[in-house]
Every structure is written in C-alpha cells, then in structure tokens.
C-alpha cells in the first residue's frame, strides 16, 4: 500500500496513534534529540539524527523483571513465604521516525532474544506488539556506514512502513500487515494527484550514492579471529578509549544487561539494566579475577562480538553502521578505522 501525508499532519497522526498505541519517536529533550515516548507536548524532530537509538522502546535502559516480597507466617515467625510477580508489557507500540539502520538493529536482538534458542519473554512480547515506521535517510552523515555492513539509507527491511520525504509530503509505503493498518489512519491520503514513484526512487538512490563503502565484510569473522592475539594492534587502536559506555548505550544492537535486586526490608524489584562491555566491571568475577581487565581486551571483545562471534553463531553482523559510536565518542574513536585495520 502506498499513501502520503503532508508534513504538517504528522503531529495529528502521532496524536491519533498515541490514542491506540504506545508511541516512541525522536523528541527534543534539552539540546538533544532522543528516542522517547511521545506525548503531544513533546517536540518531534524527524530531520536530525537522534543521539539514542530506538532500542529503548523494546529493551528499556532498566526494567523490572520481577517484584518480590517476603511475608512472614504469623503462626511461626521463622517461616517466610516469598511472593513473586512478573509483569510483561503487552502494550501495542509504534516506533515512529526511525532511520532504516535503527530498524535493522532489532535483527540482532531478534536472533539473540527471540531466535531459535532462548526466547526472552520481556523482549519478544514487546517486539511482537510493535510496528516500526522508518524514514528514508536522504542526507547521511560523515559517520554513517550502513551500506558497508549490508544496510541502506532507504532500506525497507525490518520496517512496517517506510516514509520518504518529497517536498511537503512524506510518501508512505507499507511492507506488512501492521504497516497497512497504520496507513489506514485518516491523516494519510491516497497518493493520486502528485505521486511520483520515480521521484521517490530517485531520492532513495541518491541517498545510497552519498555513502562510500568503507571496507569489505567478506570473511571478516575469520580475519578478526586471526588477529585476536595481536595485542599491539589492539592496544594501539584503543589507547585513546576512555572506557565509558557511550558507544554501547547509543548502539542499536548492543543488548547486554546487568541484573540487580533493588529493595528495602525484604521487598523490592529484580531489575535488569543496560550494561556495557566497555566497563571493567562487566567481566569482573567474584574471585576478583577479571578476564578483560584491560581496555584493549574489552574493546577487542566489542569488535569481535559484532563482526565475528555473531556472524559465526547467528550469521548476522552485529553492526548496522549508524555511526553513533563514532559521533558521540568523547575521543572520536572510529570503529571503521579499527575494523579496516584488521582487514588490512
């Protein structure tokens, strides 16, 4: 199905949708644009690149897995019963205005949390209830490299609706039933009288042209394994890294988490919160031993995880080329340079 919507009706659309769905969109927060739950008093910005990725919608920075409560048996004080409550979120959700690379990010999550092996109920439930509306990325940034890792700025894979901006309209193409349902909203009109499929195609092609292929991912998983023990390479490549968690937290595919119990006096929550393999605590063992105590080991793991382990195990590159980790890195550490160095 193909429809169109004038730019000035997008807000109406979002207000409509937020009646039926939980809507996530890139909203302005302070000076930054982040993905957050949409409310009509929030300013949506579909032009810029958001700092955070949309993974927050399906993989919140923290979520309660269970609520626990210890209760005493009044007849025998030494007996205690434990009540556990687990709430899984079934809210119908629309993620609106993502870049195609972000939408692809969930493929990695799907493999890990909703694949053939383990099924993570918290993620999977939300994923199934979610529709994604992406926007063709007409002006990629200097840090973008989606085409290098198999994506495209006009990629429709993983989206339910793809919007492409042409003059004062977004042209909307649906790619699934969920998408078609969304396009039934009255703010969309049928494309007659001005639809120019050619024009949309041209915009998409131009966007692709704007991006260089930085390196070839052919056989990269084995190249990485081969260079694994070349500590000097990794040390040199990562000496400026600060071990902060920005790259992993803004990354649309990083899915690691930490589990902690947060409670007072026998009552509380078991939460999971984002964790970052860049933190030394990430692999610290109870004995005090840390297999990845040094930052080059941690960074090496991050690269290997994305470009080797996931490829070997799940046949997917765990990087969508959104470039956030480069853009927001405090020391402008460039993942492309590091991977290129491996290939060379």
């Amino acid at each position: 199905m193909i429809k169109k919507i004038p730019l000035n009706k997008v807000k109406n659309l979002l207000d409509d949708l937020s009646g039926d769905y939980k809507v996530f969109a890139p909203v302005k927060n302070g000076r930054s644009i982040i993905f957050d739950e949409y409310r009509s008093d929030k300013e949506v910005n579909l032009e810029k690149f958001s700092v955070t990725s949309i993974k927050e919608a399906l993989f919140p920075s923290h979520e309660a897995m269970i609520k626990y409560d210890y209760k005493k048996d009044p007849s025998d004080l030494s007996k205690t019963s434990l009540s556990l409550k687990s709430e899984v979120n079934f809210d119908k959700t629309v993620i609106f205005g993502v870049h195609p690379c972000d939408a692809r990010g969930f493929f990695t999550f799907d493999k890990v949390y909703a694949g053939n092996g383990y099924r993570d109920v918290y993620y999977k439930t939300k994923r199934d209830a979610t529709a994604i509306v992406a926007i063709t990325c007409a002006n990629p940034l200097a840090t973008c490299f989606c085409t290098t890792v198999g994506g495209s700025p006009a990629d429709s894979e993983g989206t339910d609706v793809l919007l492409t901006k042409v003059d004062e309209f977004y042209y909307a193409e649906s790619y699934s039933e969920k998408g078609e349902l969304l396009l039934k909203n009255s703010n969309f009109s049928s494309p007659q009288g001005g639809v120019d499929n050619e024009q949309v195609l041209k915009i998409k092609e131009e966007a692709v042209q704007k991006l260089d292929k930085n390196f070839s991912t052919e056989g990269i998983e084995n190249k990485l394994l081969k260079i694994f023990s070349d500590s000097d390479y990794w040390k040199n490549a990562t000496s400026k890294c600060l071990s902060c968690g920005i790259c992993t937290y803004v990354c649309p595919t990083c899915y690691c988490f930490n589990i902690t119990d947060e409670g007072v006096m026998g009552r509380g929550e078991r939460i999971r919160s984002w964790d970052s393999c860049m933190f030394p605590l990430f692999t610290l063992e109870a004995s005090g031993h840390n297999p990845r105590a040094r930052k080059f080991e941690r960074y090496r793991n991050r690269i290997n995880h994305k470009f080797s382990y996931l490829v070997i195990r799940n046949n997917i590159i765990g990087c969508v080329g959104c470039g956030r980790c480069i853009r927001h890195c405090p020391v402008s550490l460039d993942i492309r340079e590091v991977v290129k160095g491996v290939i060379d």
Partner: protein
Amino acid sequence: MDRLDILKEKVKEILPEVDFVIGYSKGFDILHPSPYFVSEERQIRNLIWDEFCINNFANYLPPPKRVPNGLFKQDEKIGLVVKGCDSRSIIQLLQEEIIFRDTFIILGMPCEMKIDLKKLREKIDIDYIQSFNVSGDKAEVKTLLEKKTINLDEILYDKCLYCKYPNPLIYDYLIGDKVNPRSREGFYKDVDEFEMISNEEKISCWEKEFDRCIRCYACREACPNCYCQYQCIAQTRRPHWISQSTETIDKKFFQMFRAFHNAGRCTDCGECDRVCPVGIPISKIMKKLTKEVLRLFNYEAGVDEKLIPPLMTYKREEDNIG
C-alpha cells in the same frame, strides 16, 4: 614558526626519551580532533593543533600506584600536550600524589581559545560541516547546506571566554609564546542566575536534564579526578549507595555525588560536560562547587601544588563559616 611546527619539532626531540607522546590528530571531521598517540617519528606529521583540540590529556596520566584498568605500565614514561586548563588537572593530581612528576613530560601549549560544539550546533547544523575558518574575532563556517559568519565569543567554551590560565602553570617545555589571560569576571554568571530561580524551577530543570541521562558514565571516565575506576560507588553493590535503575532520581543522585567527590578538586576543565552525549550541563553543577569553594575557602583547585585541597584540611577558626 607557528605553534604546531614548534610542537612537532619538540615531539621529535623528546620522542627518544618517552614511550609515546599524546597529541591531537584529525578525527572523522574537522570539528572532532582525536587524541593521537605518537610512538614513531613518522606519526609526527599527523599532529594537528586548532581551536577544536579540546581533550584534557591529564585523564591519560597513569595512576602508578594501582592500575586495575591497565592503561599504562608503571614504568612507561610519556609526553603529553597540555593546555593551560589541563595543567591545572595535572597539578591537582600531583597534589593528591596520584601521579608522579618524573613519569611524564609536559609540552605546555598556550591556548587562545576552543570552540564549544554545543554552542556552534545552536548556530549551524554542524553534522554537515565542510569548513571552518577563523579571521579576527569571527569565524566563517560552511556546511553542506549553508554558510555563516559567527562571532567567536558566541561559540567559545565558557571556560575559554573567561580563561584565567591560558598558559600552562606547569610544564617542561613551553610551545610558542604565552597568550594573554582573559578576565574571570562573569564566569559564574550562569550559576548566579540559576541560584536565583525558585526551588520548584530548580527541581523541574534538573528533572528534565537528568531524565535523558543514559548512565553511560562518560562524565566520570572523562574526568581526570575520577580515578576510582571500577571501585566507583555508582556501581558497587556493597555498600549499596545507589540503585542500578535509570530512574531520574538515581541519575541525579549519581551526578550529585560525583560532583561532591570533586568538591575542592574540580578545576572546571569541563570534560564531563563536553563528553555528555545527551548534553546535560554538568559543568554548571561543577561550577557551583568551585564557586562555593572559592567563596568559603578562598581556594582554586589545581593552581598551587603545595596547597592541601580544602576538604582535606580545616582551620580551627574558619574565615567564612559562621
């Protein structure tokens, strides 16, 4: 000879003495120079020096006593490019005996100014930057989409606009001529103004700011004074100071105690603020503390190596505590 050429020559001169020298090289665009570790002579030509070279390399100085993070080996000797503001961080760390003077060589860079990308972004869409040229007190900025002339004073870091110490206070070699300091008058203007607003406004302001914090700890990792590394109480489970949740209140509490750990130690280098991916004005919090420390103890951190940080000492009769 311009400062960069002198620097390159000096790096070449000291390179045999050290394992490497930390300077700046080009990053993914002209606005984002990146720390550059020079260990071979051929790398020297990649060094750059411009109004975007901002990182505080004091952060890379090794804590030689305990190195769980394994940044450097204890026996490594390094050289590093140090601006006036960065030199205060080094003095602070020396004062705390966290680093030792004989393990590094300071190439002191007198510094005219640095451009605050957050301010620049308000003026022009820097995602598509093409060129940036300074002439006099203005800058010609060109992006893919537009071209603008911007007054430099509008886009400098606050710390540069009121820079009292543009020349390093401690160095082994001074690279080029010293530059004139600016007046400190007005440095605390934003803090003063914030103090005047109502408490409700303060609460709602911080609530909005910390709402978007992603708890990535970049502020901490970029801070030269935050050297607790993985013992930071933000993540330790015992003592359980703080929940691992990303509720706004927890994120605010984290920043409050990180700030307070820096009371009397912070040199207003602004790295925490700069690195924050979601633009939380952390330096305003830090400036509040430096302002109070100045008022109460007449003390500026990182200026005199011989002094004791004010919260590590006391007077029987305090001058400004009644």
